[in-house]
Protein backbone atom coordinates (compact mmCIF):
# COMPACT_ATOMS: atom_id res chain seq x y z
CA UNK A 1 0.00 0.00 0.00
CA UNK A 2 1.28 3.39 -0.95
CA UNK A 3 2.77 5.57 1.74
CA UNK A 4 1.46 8.69 0.01
CA UNK A 5 -1.69 8.98 2.09
CA UNK A 6 -3.84 12.07 1.75
CA UNK A 7 -6.97 13.03 3.65
CA UNK A 8 -9.64 13.42 0.99
CA UNK A 9 -12.62 14.49 3.09
CA UNK A 10 -14.61 13.76 6.23
CA UNK A 11 -16.79 10.64 6.34
CA UNK A 12 -19.96 12.67 6.89
CA UNK A 13 -19.36 14.56 3.65
CA UNK A 14 -20.16 11.52 1.48
CA UNK A 15 -23.45 9.81 2.27
CA UNK A 16 -24.11 6.20 1.11
CA UNK A 17 -24.81 6.15 -2.63
CA UNK A 18 -23.06 9.45 -3.22
CA UNK A 19 -19.72 10.68 -4.42
CA UNK A 20 -17.46 13.63 -3.83
CA UNK A 21 -14.78 14.76 -6.22
CA UNK A 22 -11.58 16.07 -4.66
CA UNK A 23 -8.21 17.21 -5.96
CA UNK A 24 -5.38 15.17 -4.37
CA UNK A 25 -1.91 16.17 -5.48
CA UNK A 26 -2.16 16.26 -9.25
CA UNK A 27 -5.08 13.84 -9.36
CA UNK A 28 -8.80 14.45 -9.54
CA UNK A 29 -10.31 11.65 -7.46
CA UNK A 30 -13.88 10.53 -6.84
CA UNK A 31 -14.60 9.33 -3.32
CA UNK A 32 -17.66 7.05 -3.13
CA UNK A 33 -19.63 5.68 -0.22
CA UNK A 34 -21.06 2.25 -1.05
CA UNK A 35 -23.13 1.00 1.89
CA UNK A 36 -20.87 2.68 4.41
CA UNK A 37 -17.62 1.57 2.72
CA UNK A 38 -15.47 4.19 1.09
CA UNK A 39 -13.86 3.74 -2.32
CA UNK A 40 -11.84 6.00 -4.58
CA UNK A 41 -11.55 6.12 -8.36
CA UNK A 42 -9.38 8.29 -10.54
CA UNK A 43 -11.74 10.78 -12.15
CA UNK A 44 -10.66 9.77 -15.62
CA UNK A 45 -12.58 7.31 -17.76
CA UNK A 46 -10.29 4.75 -19.46
CA UNK A 47 -12.50 5.03 -22.53
CA UNK A 48 -12.15 8.67 -23.60
CA UNK A 49 -10.75 10.46 -20.59
CA UNK A 50 -14.06 11.92 -19.44
CA UNK A 51 -14.77 12.97 -15.86
CA UNK A 52 -15.84 9.46 -14.91
CA UNK A 53 -16.82 10.25 -11.35
CA UNK A 54 -19.24 13.01 -12.29
CA UNK A 55 -21.60 10.44 -13.72
CA UNK A 56 -24.59 8.99 -11.87
CA UNK A 57 -24.08 6.45 -9.10
CA UNK A 58 -26.72 3.84 -9.81
CA UNK A 59 -27.34 0.16 -10.53
CA UNK A 60 -27.86 -1.93 -13.64
CA UNK A 61 -29.31 -5.22 -14.87
CA UNK A 62 -27.74 -8.50 -13.84
CA UNK A 63 -26.62 -10.83 -16.60
CA UNK A 64 -29.24 -13.47 -17.34
CA UNK A 65 -29.84 -16.52 -19.48
CA UNK A 66 -33.50 -15.61 -19.72
CA UNK A 67 -35.54 -12.49 -20.29
CA UNK A 68 -35.60 -11.19 -16.72
CA UNK A 69 -34.52 -7.73 -15.69
CA UNK A 70 -32.95 -7.98 -12.25
CA UNK A 71 -31.63 -4.75 -10.82
CA UNK A 72 -28.21 -5.24 -9.28
CA UNK A 73 -25.19 -3.29 -8.01
CA UNK A 74 -27.59 -0.66 -6.71
CA UNK A 75 -25.52 2.43 -5.86
CA UNK A 76 -22.36 0.37 -6.38
CA UNK A 77 -21.80 1.42 -9.96
CA UNK A 78 -20.80 4.66 -11.59
CA UNK A 79 -21.95 5.39 -15.12
CA UNK A 80 -19.40 7.59 -16.85
CA UNK A 81 -20.63 11.12 -17.36
CA UNK A 82 -19.98 11.16 -21.11
CA UNK A 83 -20.70 7.83 -22.81
CA UNK A 84 -22.41 5.89 -20.06
CA UNK A 85 -19.92 3.05 -19.66
CA UNK A 86 -20.67 1.18 -16.43
CA UNK A 87 -17.89 0.76 -13.88
CA UNK A 88 -18.07 -1.25 -10.68
CA UNK A 89 -17.03 1.24 -8.02
CA UNK A 90 -15.29 -1.35 -5.84
CA UNK A 91 -13.18 -3.02 -8.51
CA UNK A 92 -13.08 -0.32 -11.17
CA UNK A 93 -14.10 -2.95 -13.75
CA UNK A 94 -15.99 -2.03 -16.91
CA UNK A 95 -18.95 -4.39 -16.99
CA UNK A 96 -18.82 -5.19 -20.71
CA UNK A 97 -15.11 -5.98 -20.63
CA UNK A 98 -13.54 -6.39 -17.17
CA UNK A 99 -10.06 -6.19 -18.66
CA UNK A 100 -10.76 -2.47 -19.01
CA UNK A 101 -10.52 -0.92 -15.56
CA UNK A 102 -10.88 2.52 -14.09
CA UNK A 103 -7.96 3.32 -11.84
CA UNK A 104 -8.83 2.64 -8.19
CA UNK A 105 -7.03 3.79 -5.05
CA UNK A 106 -6.97 2.11 -1.68
CA UNK A 107 -8.93 3.96 0.98
CA UNK A 108 -8.81 3.84 4.76
CA UNK A 109 -10.93 5.58 7.33
CA UNK A 110 -8.97 7.14 10.15
CA UNK A 111 -11.27 8.63 12.74
CA UNK A 112 -13.55 10.92 10.77
CA UNK A 113 -11.15 11.21 7.87
CA UNK A 114 -11.40 9.41 4.57
CA UNK A 115 -7.80 8.76 3.56
CA UNK A 116 -6.84 7.94 -0.03
CA UNK A 117 -3.59 6.07 -0.70
CA UNK A 118 -2.23 7.51 -3.92
Amino acid at each position, binding site marked *: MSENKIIACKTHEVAPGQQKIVQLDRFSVGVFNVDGEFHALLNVCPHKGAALCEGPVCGTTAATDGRDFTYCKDKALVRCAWHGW*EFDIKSGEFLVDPSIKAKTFAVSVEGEDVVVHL
Partner: protein
Amino acid sequence: MIIDVDCHNYWSSAEVLLPYMDPFFKDYFIRGEQPGPRGAFPHAHRPWLHPEGFKRADINPVSEDDNYAIMKAKHLDHYGIDYAILTGDEALEASTLANPYYAAALVRAYNDYQVEEWLPRDDRLVGSIVIAPQDPQLAAQEIRRLGQNPRMVQVLASHGASRPYGDPFYHPIYEACAEMGLPFAIHLGGQGGINSNPIGAGPTTFFWETHAILPQSAMTHVASMIAQGVFEKWPQLYFVVIECGVAWVPSVLWRLDANYKALRKETPWLKRLPSEYFKDHIRFTTQPLERPDNLQHLWSLLEAMDGKNTLMYASDYPHWDYDDLNSLHIPPEWRQNILGDNAMQVFKRLQALDAAKKAA
Protein backbone atom coordinates in the same frame (compact mmCIF):
# COMPACT_ATOMS: atom_id res chain seq x y z
CA MET B 1 -14.85 -26.68 -53.89
CA ILE B 2 -17.27 -24.14 -55.34
CA ILE B 3 -20.61 -23.59 -53.67
CA ASP B 4 -23.08 -21.07 -55.03
CA VAL B 5 -25.36 -20.13 -52.17
CA ASP B 6 -27.84 -18.16 -54.25
CA CYS B 7 -28.96 -19.88 -57.45
CA HIS B 8 -32.49 -19.08 -58.56
CA ASN B 9 -34.66 -21.76 -60.07
CA TYR B 10 -37.40 -20.30 -62.20
CA TRP B 11 -40.73 -21.66 -63.28
CA SER B 12 -42.50 -20.96 -66.54
CA SER B 13 -45.75 -20.34 -64.66
CA ALA B 14 -46.73 -20.50 -61.00
CA GLU B 15 -49.31 -23.07 -62.13
CA VAL B 16 -46.56 -25.67 -61.74
CA LEU B 17 -47.53 -25.50 -58.06
CA LEU B 18 -51.10 -26.68 -58.63
CA PRO B 19 -50.42 -30.42 -58.29
CA TYR B 20 -48.95 -29.72 -54.86
CA MET B 21 -51.86 -27.74 -53.46
CA ASP B 22 -54.77 -28.83 -51.30
CA PRO B 23 -58.15 -28.56 -53.06
CA PHE B 24 -59.25 -25.47 -51.18
CA PHE B 25 -56.15 -23.45 -51.95
CA LYS B 26 -55.93 -24.85 -55.46
CA ASP B 27 -59.38 -23.42 -56.04
CA TYR B 28 -58.28 -20.14 -54.45
CA PHE B 29 -55.28 -20.07 -56.77
CA ILE B 30 -57.13 -20.93 -60.00
CA ARG B 31 -60.17 -18.72 -59.56
CA GLY B 32 -58.90 -16.04 -57.21
CA GLU B 33 -57.67 -12.60 -58.11
CA GLN B 34 -54.08 -12.52 -59.34
CA PRO B 35 -51.51 -9.72 -59.43
CA GLY B 36 -50.82 -10.49 -63.11
CA PRO B 37 -52.11 -12.70 -65.91
CA ARG B 38 -53.11 -16.34 -65.51
CA GLY B 39 -50.22 -18.26 -64.02
CA ALA B 40 -48.93 -15.34 -61.98
CA PHE B 41 -47.85 -16.07 -58.43
CA PRO B 42 -50.19 -14.51 -55.87
CA HIS B 43 -48.39 -11.81 -53.96
CA ALA B 44 -48.79 -8.21 -52.90
CA HIS B 45 -46.21 -6.87 -55.26
CA ARG B 46 -43.67 -4.20 -54.47
CA PRO B 47 -44.18 -0.87 -56.24
CA TRP B 48 -40.78 -0.89 -57.98
CA LEU B 49 -40.81 -2.69 -61.31
CA HIS B 50 -37.58 -3.55 -63.06
CA PRO B 51 -37.89 -1.84 -66.43
CA GLU B 52 -36.21 -4.76 -68.21
CA GLY B 53 -37.43 -7.64 -66.09
CA PHE B 54 -35.19 -9.39 -63.60
CA LYS B 55 -33.35 -11.97 -65.57
CA ARG B 56 -30.29 -11.92 -67.74
CA ALA B 57 -31.35 -11.26 -71.34
CA ASP B 58 -29.41 -14.30 -72.58
CA ILE B 59 -31.47 -16.74 -70.53
CA ASN B 60 -34.84 -17.39 -72.08
CA PRO B 61 -36.39 -20.67 -70.98
CA VAL B 62 -39.60 -21.55 -72.78
CA SER B 63 -40.38 -24.74 -70.88
CA GLU B 64 -39.81 -26.18 -67.41
CA ASP B 65 -37.08 -28.45 -68.77
CA ASP B 66 -35.35 -25.46 -70.32
CA ASN B 67 -35.05 -23.84 -66.91
CA TYR B 68 -32.75 -26.58 -65.75
CA ALA B 69 -31.01 -27.22 -69.08
CA ILE B 70 -29.95 -23.59 -69.38
CA MET B 71 -28.88 -23.38 -65.73
CA LYS B 72 -26.76 -26.49 -66.24
CA ALA B 73 -25.11 -25.27 -69.42
CA LYS B 74 -24.61 -21.61 -68.65
CA HIS B 75 -23.94 -21.80 -64.94
CA LEU B 76 -23.32 -25.14 -63.21
CA ASP B 77 -21.18 -26.75 -65.93
CA HIS B 78 -19.70 -23.54 -67.23
CA TYR B 79 -18.19 -22.55 -63.88
CA GLY B 80 -17.68 -26.00 -62.43
CA ILE B 81 -20.05 -25.41 -59.52
CA ASP B 82 -19.95 -28.28 -57.01
CA TYR B 83 -23.15 -27.34 -55.19
CA ALA B 84 -25.81 -24.74 -55.83
CA ILE B 85 -28.35 -23.84 -53.20
CA LEU B 86 -31.69 -23.20 -54.89
CA THR B 87 -33.34 -20.05 -53.65
CA GLY B 88 -36.49 -20.14 -55.77
CA ASP B 89 -37.78 -16.88 -57.01
CA GLU B 90 -41.33 -15.62 -56.60
CA ALA B 91 -42.06 -18.07 -53.80
CA LEU B 92 -40.32 -15.73 -51.38
CA GLU B 93 -42.99 -13.13 -52.09
CA ALA B 94 -45.59 -15.22 -50.26
CA SER B 95 -44.40 -13.26 -47.22
CA THR B 96 -46.22 -10.19 -48.54
CA LEU B 97 -49.71 -11.70 -48.26
CA ALA B 98 -52.04 -10.77 -45.42
CA ASN B 99 -53.63 -14.23 -45.36
CA PRO B 100 -51.05 -16.42 -43.59
CA TYR B 101 -52.91 -19.64 -44.42
CA TYR B 102 -52.80 -18.98 -48.14
CA ALA B 103 -49.17 -17.90 -47.86
CA ALA B 104 -48.31 -21.10 -45.99
CA ALA B 105 -50.15 -23.19 -48.61
CA LEU B 106 -48.18 -21.50 -51.38
CA VAL B 107 -44.76 -22.05 -49.85
CA ARG B 108 -45.69 -25.62 -48.93
CA ALA B 109 -46.59 -26.27 -52.56
CA TYR B 110 -43.40 -24.58 -53.72
CA ASN B 111 -41.25 -26.64 -51.39
CA ASP B 112 -42.82 -29.90 -52.56
CA TYR B 113 -42.44 -28.84 -56.19
CA GLN B 114 -38.78 -28.07 -55.52
CA VAL B 115 -38.19 -31.46 -53.88
CA GLU B 116 -40.05 -33.38 -56.58
CA GLU B 117 -39.10 -31.52 -59.72
CA TRP B 118 -35.75 -29.85 -59.11
CA LEU B 119 -33.60 -31.84 -56.71
CA PRO B 120 -33.81 -35.14 -58.67
CA ARG B 121 -32.46 -33.45 -61.78
CA ASP B 122 -28.91 -32.96 -60.54
CA ASP B 123 -27.05 -34.03 -57.42
CA ARG B 124 -25.33 -30.65 -57.35
CA LEU B 125 -28.62 -28.98 -56.50
CA VAL B 126 -29.73 -28.61 -52.90
CA GLY B 127 -32.82 -26.85 -51.63
CA SER B 128 -34.14 -24.21 -49.27
CA ILE B 129 -37.26 -24.64 -47.16
CA VAL B 130 -39.07 -21.44 -48.06
CA ILE B 131 -41.30 -20.16 -45.27
CA ALA B 132 -44.01 -17.54 -44.95
CA PRO B 133 -42.87 -15.92 -41.70
CA GLN B 134 -46.06 -13.95 -41.04
CA ASP B 135 -47.30 -16.93 -39.04
CA PRO B 136 -44.24 -18.30 -37.22
CA GLN B 137 -46.11 -21.36 -35.93
CA LEU B 138 -47.09 -22.42 -39.46
CA ALA B 139 -43.55 -21.66 -40.60
CA ALA B 140 -42.14 -23.86 -37.85
CA GLN B 141 -44.49 -26.66 -38.91
CA GLU B 142 -43.19 -26.42 -42.45
CA ILE B 143 -39.58 -26.50 -41.23
CA ARG B 144 -40.28 -29.65 -39.23
CA ARG B 145 -42.26 -31.22 -42.08
CA LEU B 146 -39.34 -31.06 -44.51
CA GLY B 147 -36.46 -30.64 -42.13
CA GLN B 148 -35.37 -34.26 -42.23
CA ASN B 149 -34.73 -34.19 -45.98
CA PRO B 150 -30.92 -34.32 -46.27
CA ARG B 151 -31.00 -32.27 -49.50
CA MET B 152 -32.78 -29.31 -47.85
CA VAL B 153 -29.93 -27.27 -46.41
CA GLN B 154 -31.49 -24.07 -45.07
CA VAL B 155 -34.67 -22.25 -44.13
CA LEU B 156 -35.33 -19.23 -46.30
CA ALA B 157 -37.47 -16.11 -45.85
CA SER B 158 -37.65 -12.78 -47.65
CA HIS B 159 -35.79 -9.84 -46.16
CA GLY B 160 -38.92 -7.77 -46.47
CA ALA B 161 -40.72 -8.54 -43.21
CA SER B 162 -43.43 -7.11 -41.04
CA ARG B 163 -41.08 -6.68 -38.09
CA PRO B 164 -37.35 -7.16 -37.44
CA TYR B 165 -36.40 -10.83 -37.44
CA GLY B 166 -34.91 -10.90 -33.95
CA ASP B 167 -38.35 -10.14 -32.47
CA PRO B 168 -39.46 -12.91 -30.09
CA PHE B 169 -42.57 -13.18 -32.29
CA TYR B 170 -40.38 -15.12 -34.74
CA HIS B 171 -38.60 -17.31 -32.21
CA PRO B 172 -40.69 -20.43 -32.98
CA ILE B 173 -38.95 -20.36 -36.39
CA TYR B 174 -35.49 -20.49 -34.81
CA GLU B 175 -36.59 -23.17 -32.39
CA ALA B 176 -37.51 -25.31 -35.41
CA CYS B 177 -34.30 -24.40 -37.28
CA ALA B 178 -32.24 -25.40 -34.26
CA GLU B 179 -34.14 -28.64 -33.87
CA MET B 180 -33.48 -29.53 -37.51
CA GLY B 181 -29.92 -28.22 -37.54
CA LEU B 182 -30.64 -25.75 -40.35
CA PRO B 183 -29.39 -22.18 -40.88
CA PHE B 184 -31.96 -19.40 -41.19
CA ALA B 185 -31.44 -17.32 -44.32
CA ILE B 186 -33.04 -14.15 -45.62
CA HIS B 187 -32.91 -13.09 -49.25
CA LEU B 188 -33.60 -9.67 -50.72
CA GLY B 189 -37.27 -9.49 -51.65
CA GLY B 190 -40.71 -9.47 -50.13
CA GLN B 191 -41.19 -5.75 -50.26
CA GLY B 192 -44.79 -4.60 -50.39
CA GLY B 193 -48.02 -5.99 -49.00
CA ILE B 194 -48.03 -6.46 -45.25
CA ASN B 195 -44.30 -6.00 -44.94
CA SER B 196 -42.69 -2.86 -43.60
CA ASN B 197 -41.46 -0.42 -46.15
CA PRO B 198 -37.79 -1.32 -46.50
CA ILE B 199 -36.88 2.24 -47.39
CA GLY B 200 -36.73 4.09 -44.10
CA ALA B 201 -37.67 7.56 -45.31
CA GLY B 202 -40.51 6.50 -47.58
CA PRO B 203 -40.87 5.12 -51.07
CA THR B 204 -38.11 5.73 -53.56
CA THR B 205 -38.86 6.21 -57.24
CA PHE B 206 -36.70 4.07 -59.48
CA PHE B 207 -35.78 0.42 -59.47
CA TRP B 208 -32.01 0.85 -59.53
CA GLU B 209 -32.18 3.50 -56.85
CA THR B 210 -34.26 1.24 -54.64
CA HIS B 211 -32.18 -1.86 -55.20
CA ALA B 212 -29.02 0.02 -54.22
CA ILE B 213 -30.38 0.98 -50.81
CA LEU B 214 -32.21 -2.21 -49.88
CA PRO B 215 -29.47 -3.03 -47.34
CA GLN B 216 -31.45 -0.79 -44.99
CA SER B 217 -33.73 -3.59 -43.89
CA ALA B 218 -30.86 -6.08 -43.68
CA MET B 219 -29.22 -3.71 -41.19
CA THR B 220 -32.38 -3.78 -39.12
CA HIS B 221 -32.53 -7.57 -39.15
CA VAL B 222 -28.85 -8.00 -38.24
CA ALA B 223 -29.14 -5.58 -35.32
CA SER B 224 -32.35 -7.22 -34.16
CA MET B 225 -31.10 -10.81 -34.34
CA ILE B 226 -28.09 -9.87 -32.22
CA ALA B 227 -29.84 -7.57 -29.74
CA GLN B 228 -32.75 -9.90 -29.05
CA GLY B 229 -30.33 -12.63 -28.03
CA VAL B 230 -31.25 -15.13 -30.75
CA PHE B 231 -27.71 -16.50 -30.73
CA GLU B 232 -27.65 -16.92 -26.96
CA LYS B 233 -30.91 -18.86 -27.11
CA TRP B 234 -29.76 -21.00 -30.06
CA PRO B 235 -25.96 -21.14 -29.88
CA GLN B 236 -25.62 -23.36 -32.97
CA LEU B 237 -27.76 -21.18 -35.25
CA TYR B 238 -26.36 -19.53 -38.35
CA PHE B 239 -28.12 -16.51 -39.89
CA VAL B 240 -27.34 -16.05 -43.59
CA VAL B 241 -28.00 -12.70 -45.26
CA ILE B 242 -28.29 -13.09 -49.02
CA GLU B 243 -28.01 -10.31 -51.57
CA CYS B 244 -28.10 -7.37 -49.20
CA GLY B 245 -24.65 -5.91 -49.87
CA VAL B 246 -21.68 -6.19 -47.52
CA ALA B 247 -19.66 -2.98 -47.38
CA TRP B 248 -22.07 -1.52 -44.82
CA VAL B 249 -21.51 -4.33 -42.35
CA PRO B 250 -18.41 -2.98 -40.55
CA SER B 251 -20.05 0.39 -40.03
CA VAL B 252 -23.14 -1.11 -38.41
CA LEU B 253 -21.06 -3.48 -36.26
CA TRP B 254 -18.91 -0.60 -35.05
CA ARG B 255 -22.02 1.29 -34.05
CA LEU B 256 -23.62 -1.69 -32.38
CA ASP B 257 -20.50 -2.37 -30.32
CA ALA B 258 -20.15 1.25 -29.27
CA ASN B 259 -23.78 1.58 -28.22
CA TYR B 260 -23.81 -1.75 -26.43
CA LYS B 261 -20.84 -0.66 -24.34
CA ALA B 262 -22.89 2.25 -23.04
CA LEU B 263 -26.25 0.53 -22.70
CA ARG B 264 -25.73 -3.15 -22.08
CA LYS B 265 -28.32 -2.89 -19.30
CA GLU B 266 -31.12 -3.00 -21.87
CA THR B 267 -30.21 -6.51 -22.99
CA PRO B 268 -28.86 -8.44 -19.99
CA TRP B 269 -29.06 -11.73 -21.93
CA LEU B 270 -26.11 -10.78 -24.09
CA LYS B 271 -22.73 -12.09 -22.96
CA ARG B 272 -20.50 -10.74 -25.70
CA LEU B 273 -20.07 -7.78 -28.01
CA PRO B 274 -22.44 -7.59 -30.99
CA SER B 275 -19.52 -8.00 -33.39
CA GLU B 276 -18.57 -11.25 -31.68
CA TYR B 277 -22.03 -12.71 -32.24
CA PHE B 278 -21.75 -11.60 -35.85
CA LYS B 279 -18.46 -13.43 -36.38
CA ASP B 280 -19.75 -16.67 -34.94
CA HIS B 281 -23.30 -16.68 -36.29
CA ILE B 282 -23.92 -14.38 -39.25
CA ARG B 283 -22.75 -14.92 -42.80
CA PHE B 284 -23.10 -12.65 -45.81
CA THR B 285 -23.12 -13.51 -49.48
CA THR B 286 -21.04 -11.76 -52.07
CA GLN B 287 -23.44 -10.90 -54.84
CA PRO B 288 -23.82 -8.05 -55.63
CA LEU B 289 -20.43 -7.16 -54.25
CA GLU B 290 -19.78 -3.42 -54.17
CA ARG B 291 -17.37 -2.17 -56.79
CA PRO B 292 -15.48 0.99 -55.86
CA ASP B 293 -13.01 2.52 -58.30
CA ASN B 294 -10.23 1.68 -55.89
CA LEU B 295 -10.64 -2.00 -54.94
CA GLN B 296 -8.44 -1.45 -51.91
CA HIS B 297 -11.23 0.56 -50.33
CA LEU B 298 -13.54 -2.43 -50.58
CA TRP B 299 -10.92 -4.86 -49.35
CA SER B 300 -10.26 -2.78 -46.24
CA LEU B 301 -13.95 -2.99 -45.37
CA LEU B 302 -14.11 -6.70 -46.08
CA GLU B 303 -11.13 -7.19 -43.82
CA ALA B 304 -12.89 -5.21 -41.07
CA MET B 305 -15.75 -7.72 -41.16
CA ASP B 306 -13.38 -10.68 -41.27
CA GLY B 307 -14.59 -11.28 -44.82
CA LYS B 308 -12.28 -14.21 -45.29
CA ASN B 309 -14.41 -16.11 -42.79
CA THR B 310 -17.80 -14.41 -43.02
CA LEU B 311 -18.46 -14.19 -46.76
CA MET B 312 -19.83 -16.85 -49.07
CA TYR B 313 -19.93 -16.83 -52.84
CA ALA B 314 -23.30 -16.21 -54.47
CA SER B 315 -24.01 -15.82 -58.18
CA ASP B 316 -27.65 -14.72 -58.10
CA TYR B 317 -28.09 -16.69 -61.32
CA PRO B 318 -29.87 -15.75 -63.60
CA HIS B 319 -30.64 -12.22 -62.51
CA TRP B 320 -29.73 -8.97 -64.18
CA ASP B 321 -26.92 -8.20 -61.71
CA TYR B 322 -25.35 -11.68 -61.84
CA ASP B 323 -21.72 -11.89 -60.70
CA ASP B 324 -19.21 -13.83 -62.77
CA LEU B 325 -17.34 -16.25 -60.54
CA ASN B 326 -14.08 -15.68 -62.40
CA SER B 327 -14.06 -11.96 -61.83
CA LEU B 328 -15.04 -11.92 -58.19
CA HIS B 329 -13.11 -8.99 -56.75
CA ILE B 330 -11.89 -10.45 -53.48
CA PRO B 331 -8.32 -10.91 -52.22
CA PRO B 332 -6.92 -13.99 -54.01
CA GLU B 333 -5.87 -15.69 -50.78
CA TRP B 334 -9.49 -15.60 -49.57
CA ARG B 335 -10.92 -17.37 -52.60
CA GLN B 336 -10.99 -20.89 -51.27
CA ASN B 337 -12.78 -19.83 -48.12
CA ILE B 338 -15.30 -17.62 -49.86
CA LEU B 339 -15.96 -19.87 -52.83
CA GLY B 340 -16.65 -22.99 -50.81
CA ASP B 341 -15.07 -23.64 -47.44
CA ASN B 342 -17.16 -21.13 -45.49
CA ALA B 343 -20.39 -22.50 -46.94
CA MET B 344 -19.30 -26.03 -46.10
CA GLN B 345 -19.06 -24.96 -42.47
CA VAL B 346 -22.44 -23.21 -42.39
CA PHE B 347 -24.43 -25.79 -44.34
CA LYS B 348 -23.68 -28.87 -42.28
CA ARG B 349 -25.72 -31.05 -44.58
CA LEU B 350 -23.41 -30.32 -47.47
CA GLN B 351 -20.62 -31.95 -45.48
CA ALA B 352 -22.60 -35.18 -45.28
CA LEU B 353 -23.68 -35.02 -48.93
CA ASP B 354 -20.14 -34.38 -50.03
CA ALA B 355 -18.73 -37.21 -47.92
CA ALA B 356 -21.34 -39.57 -49.41
CA LYS B 357 -20.53 -38.41 -52.93
CA LYS B 358 -16.79 -38.93 -52.41
CA ALA B 359 -17.39 -42.39 -50.92
CA ALA B 360 -19.58 -43.41 -53.87
